[in-house]
C-alpha cells in the first residue's frame, strides 16, 4: 500500500510536534524516520497508526484519506520498543489476539498463529507467558503478532532499542529480509542512523518536527542537503570548520587561519550559483582525510588523541584553534603531540550556509 502524507501537522498545545510534513512512501517500500528524540518521528508513526489524529493535513493510504479511520480499520501491524505484549496472556493468545477480535475461526486462527510463530522461530514457545521469555523472544512474539493479521502496512517504533548489540544486529537483518519477502510497506522509526542506513530503502530525517531531507541512504550520506543531516548521518560524524569561500582568478578557495584549499571548479560554480556567502561552514567526513607526506599535504596538524576502532584508528588532530578527526588505517604510526600533514579529498568537501544551514551544493 502506498502512503502519502500531505502538509501534515500535529500540535500538542503550543508545541508543533510535526510541522507541515510532506512524504510519499511507495508500495512495498521500507522507509526509516530518523531523528533525535523529540523530533516528531514517533508522533508521525502514531498518526499513521491512527492513535493520534492530525491537527491538519491529510494521510492517504493509496488514494483513500484515512485521517478519521480508527486504528483497527487501517489494517496495520505495529511493533513497539517496549514490545507491548499482554503480560496476562500466553504467547499464543498474544499472537492470536488480533485474529480473535476479527472473529477468525478457531482452526484458521491456530494455523495462522503457528505459521507466524514458525516464521519468527518461536513456534515452540506458544504456551509461555511473556515474562518467561527473553527480550529477543518477546520481540519476536511482538513481530509475529503484528504479522499474523497480514497487514498492508508494518509500523516499527524503535523495535530494536531494548536488545543487546549482537541480537540487534541479527534482528536488523531478519526484519529487513522479512519485509522484503512479504513485500509489505514498512515505516521504521529510529534514532540510530546505522539502523536507518542499513535497513531502509529511503530515509526521512526529521528534526524539531520538520522534515530535513528524504532520500536513499547513500544519497543522504554522500550529498547531505542540510547541516543537520550531514552531522547526524555517519559515524564518526562529519567534521565542520568555519571557512571563507573565495573566488579568485584561478578558481574557488576555502580559507581559514590554518588552512587553504582549492575546490573543484564545477563545485565552486554550483556553490556560487546557490549564493554561498563569504562565511561558510565546510564539512568533511573523517574517511575523506588522509595522512600524507609534507609536499602533498593541505595543512599541518598536531596529533591530539588516538582512538583505535579495530580496522581503523580514529585520530583527532588540532590545528590553530580547530579540531579535526580523521580515520587512519590501523595501526596509526603517529604519536600524540607529533605534527603531521593532512590532505582533504576536495571532491568530498561539503559547504553549508551558516544562516540557512542548507548545503551550497544542493541541486535545485
Amino acid at each position: 500500500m502506498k502512503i502519502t502524507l500531505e502538509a501534515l501537522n500535529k500540535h500538542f498545545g503550543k508545541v508543533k510536534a510535526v510541522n507541515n510534513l510532506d512524504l510519499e512512501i511507495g508500495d512495498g517500500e521500507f522507509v526509516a524516520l530518523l531523528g533525535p528524540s523529540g523530533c516528531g518521528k514517533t508522533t508521525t508513526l502514531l498518526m499513521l497508526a491512527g492513535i493520534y489524529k492530525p491537527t491538519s493535513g491529510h494521510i492517504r493510504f493509496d488514494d483513500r484519506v484515512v485521517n478519521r479511520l480508527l486504528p483497527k480499520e487501517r489494517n496495520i501491524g505495529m511493533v513497539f520498543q517496549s514490545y507491548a505484549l499482554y503480560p496476562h496472556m500466553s504467547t499464543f493468545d498474544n499472537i492470536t489476539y488480533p485474529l480473535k477480535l476479527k472473529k477468525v475461526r478457531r482452526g484458521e486462527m491456530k494455523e495462522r498463529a503457528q505459521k507466524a510463530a514458525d516464521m519468527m522461530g518461536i513456534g515452540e514457545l506458544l504456551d509461555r507467558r511473556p515474562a518467561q521469555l527473553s527480550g529477543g523472544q518477546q520481540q519476536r512474539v511482538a513481530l509475529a503478532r503484528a504479522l499474523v493479521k497480514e497487514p498492508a502496512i508494518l509500523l516499527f517504533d524503535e523495535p530494536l532499542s531494548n536488545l543487546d548489540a549482537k541480537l540487534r544486529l541479527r534482528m536488523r537483518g531478519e526484519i529487513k529480509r522479512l519485509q522484503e519477502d512479504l513485500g509489505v510497506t514498512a515505516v521504521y522509526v529510529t534514532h540510530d542512523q546505522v539502523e536507518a542506513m542499513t535497513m531502509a530503502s529511503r530515509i526521512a530525517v526529521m528534526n524539531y518536527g520538520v522534515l530535513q531531507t528524504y532520500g536513499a541512504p547513500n544519497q543522504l550520506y554522500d550529498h547531505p542537503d542540510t547541516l543537520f543531516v550531514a552531522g547526524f548521518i555517519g559515524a564518526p560524524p562529519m567534521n565542520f570548520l568555519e571557512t571563507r569561500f573565495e573566488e579568485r582568478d584561478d578558481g574557488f578557495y576555502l580559507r581559514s587561519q590554518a588552512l587553504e584549499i582549492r575546490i573543484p571548479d564545477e563545485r565552486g560554480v554550483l556553490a556560487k550559483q546557490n549564493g554561498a556567502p563569504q562565511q561558510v561552514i565546510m564539512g568533511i567526513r573523517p574517511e575523506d582525510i588522509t595522512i600524507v607526506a609534507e609536499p602533498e599535504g593541505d595543512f599541518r596538524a598536531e596529533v591530539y588523541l588516538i582512538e583505535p576502532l579495530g580496522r581503523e584508528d580514529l585520530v583527532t588532530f588540532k590545528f590553530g584553534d580547530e579540531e579535526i578527526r580523521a580515520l587512519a588505517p590501523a595501526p596509526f604510526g603517529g604519536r600524540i603531540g607529533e605534527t603531521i600533514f593532512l590532505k582533504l579529498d576536495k571532491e568530498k568537501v561539503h559547504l553549508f550556509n551558516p544562516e540557512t544551514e542548507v548545503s551550497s551544493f544542493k541541486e535545485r
Partner: protein
Amino acid sequence: MTVRRKLRPIFAYLFLIVPSALILLGFLWLLVTSFSTKTEGLRSLGWTLRNWSFLWKPPFGPMSPSIWLITLNTFLVAAGMTVLVVLISSMSGYALSRMKFAGRKGFLSATLILHAFPSVTLLIPIYFVLRWISGIPIVGGGIPLIGGFGFNTLGGVALVMVAFQLPFGVWIMKGFFDEISWDMERSALIDGASRFRVWRQIIIPNIKPGIAALSIFSFLAGWNAYLIPFTFTIRRSGKISVLSVYLQSFMGETTITNWNAVAAVGLFQLIPVVIFFLFSQKALLNIYGGGKKGGV
C-alpha cells in the same frame, strides 16, 4: 562493633513486640471475657457460653431481629459498597489516567480535597439529601433486601459510604492505571480492540492487584463502618441495623451493660475481618507499596 550489630535486631524486635503485646493483650482479654461470667484481669472467674447466646436467641426479645439478619445487613452494605467503589473507581481512574478532557486536573484536586474532608461535617447535609431520596417512589424505600437508597435504608447507608470512599478509590486506581504502559494500550487498539474492550481485556487484568487491594479496603471500611449507619438509620437494634450499631445497642443508657456480651458481639464482628486479613495481607500491602505513582 559486632556486638552492636547483633544487638540491633534485638532492639528492633523489642520495639515491635512491646506495642504489639499491648494490643494482643486487649484481644486476649476480649476472648477470655466473652466466655466468662466474670473476670479479674485476664483471669476468668467462671466459664460460660451465655454471652454468645445472641447467636441463637435474639437478645432484645423475640420481636427483635436476629444477629444473622444484622450480619446479612452488614454484609450487604460492605459488599454493595465494594462493588460500586471498585466499578466506579476503576472506570473513572482509567479516564483520569488516560484521557484528556476539560477540568481533569480540577477534578483530581477536588477529589483529593474531598478525601481529606472529615465526614462528620457533612452529616447534616447528607441527612437532607437522603430524606429527599426517600421521597422518590421505589428508589427511596421500596426495593427488597436493601430497602432502597433513602433515609433509614441499607442502600442509603451504602450510597453514603460509597461517596466517602470514592475519592480514595479513584486516586488509587488512577495510580495503578498510570503504571500501565501506553504502548500496550495502543497495541491493543491497533490489534482491533475498542477502547472499552482494551479497558476490560487488556488493562483491567493487569491491575488486578490494585483492584484486589481496593476491594479489601472498601469491604473492611463497609464492614466496620459505624458513624454513617448509626446516623442514617433509626432504632439501633432495628431490622436495618448493622453489626457496629447493633453492638452499641448492648450498651444501654438505662440498663446495666453486660460487658461480657459486648465482648462476645465485638469478637463476632471481628472474625470475618481477621480471616480476611489472613488471606489478603499481600494485596493490602500492594496498595501502599507499589503502583501508586500518582501525579496529575
